[in-house]
């Protein structure tokens, strides 16, 4: 473990001041990624800044501008808040998949995003729900569409001293459904070989898709959107054939590698199958 100092500021401004100081200063939310990375010397730190005493980062609420998720809100709280209210089903599903209950009780959705693993389970559901990352640093605030937030495996566009403040997801229309599925070789506690989040908005009188969002995990250096599949599906009447064609197109957006978890070819096939399944679940949810 590197030899670091620890601070737990109680206001955003003091956190930003600490993080802006010279040195390697690391935000800490749930710590389920970063503590292990520090222990195994995969990350260094001079100062760890705990964000869990800053009230505005611990807030989750729904209001006129959508769902606001403070960056330090735990997966358990995000799941409890989104499960059952329907609008953000994919996020409710994904936040319940991150590790075990003990992990979810501490791990934040914001930390899942900032850790920027291509396999991160909550990111596809945030992408299909068009999340915007609101960031803050001593020099000001930014709003970054989440799709532009990732720069590579483990890399974000955050600058030194800049943190994710909250994720804001617009409230979906009543004719919208979403779902997230990942494939792992066991039932729980594993890293996604591949994951797919799908969201569709369907005109109930014609069954024509008015909006489609499909995002993929573990098949590229960053989480990606399946734009070609989305474009095909929008304006199309949804049925089994359309779902089949959309799933084939989604595979084209996957540029996976072969590693211990699966071959590139296997991952592409998973994207096809999971796209089909998530879209089918969306249809069932709309029925």
């Amino acid at each position, binding site marked *: 473990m590197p030899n*670091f100092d620890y601070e*737990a500021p109680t206001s955003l401004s003091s956190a930003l001041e600490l993080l802006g100081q010279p040195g390697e200063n690391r935000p800490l939310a749930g710590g389920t990624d970063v503590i292990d990375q520090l222990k195994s010397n995969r990350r260094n730190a001079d100062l*760890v800044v705990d964000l869990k005493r800053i009230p505005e980062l611990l807030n989750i609420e729904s209001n006129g501008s959508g769902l606001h998720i403070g960056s330090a809100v735990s997966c*358990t709280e995000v799941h409890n808040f989104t499960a059952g209210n329907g609008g953000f089903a994919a996020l409710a599903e994904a936040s319940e998949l991150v*590790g075990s*209950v*003990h*992990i979810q009780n*501490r791990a934040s959705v914001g930390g899942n995003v900032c850790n920027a693993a291509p396999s991160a389970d909550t990111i596809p559901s945030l992408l299909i729900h068009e999340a915007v990352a609101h960031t803050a640093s001593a020099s000001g605030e930014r709003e970054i569409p989440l799709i532009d937030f990732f720069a590579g495996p483990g890399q974000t566009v955050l600058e030194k001293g800049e943190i994710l403040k909250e994720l804001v997801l617009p409230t979906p229309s009543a004719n919208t459904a979403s779902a997230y599925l990942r494939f792992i070789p066991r039932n729980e*506690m594993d890293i996604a070989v591949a994951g797919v989040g799908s969201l569709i908005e369907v005109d109930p009188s014609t069954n024509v898709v008015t909006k489609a969002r499909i995002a993929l995990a573990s098949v590229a250096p960053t989480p990606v959107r399946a734009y070609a599949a989305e474009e095909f599906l929008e304006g199309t009447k949804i049925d089994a054939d359309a779902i089949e064609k959309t799933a084939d197109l989604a595979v084209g957006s996957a540029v996976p590698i072969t590693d211990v978890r699966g071959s590139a070819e296997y991952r592409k096939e998973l994207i096809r199958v999971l796209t089909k399944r998530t879209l089918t679940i969306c249809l069932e949810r709309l029925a």
Partner: protein
Amino acid sequence: MSKKQIKTTVNGVEHEILVDSTWTLLETLRDQLKLTGTKEGCSNGNCGACTVMVDGKSSCSCLVLAPEANGREITTVEGLADHGHLTPVQDAFVDNSGLQCGFCTPGFMIATTALLNDNPHPTENEIRLKLAGNLCRCTGYDKIVRSVQDAAERLTKS
């Protein structure tokens, strides 16, 4: 090495202690407070041997920094029994042979207690899913699941 003065309540007892910023809560519990019931298995969040409650929520103490415990209430396996009287969860594990070597047991005690606080009547699937963060190399899990089911019944009756 930077030290932090923290105040934390462990099993109902308040401690004011000096901890190293880089220590985990697990190290502080075991090496500083001598509460060795909590075990270290993997040290990376996968095995659950180190499970404790932090403000009532089950957590892997190997993935919590000691200074994070400041102002929090921690419950370890030593805090479950009341003056030697085992809790219904502990009794159920004893009576159903929910353990063999016992290394995983403190983690299962905390995880099961937290699970039944949240959901007093879990199905077998829910039990297996919600306890997936606790690994056992000995029992094959069946007797653990039966212990949890029995504990749920005992708690309903009591």
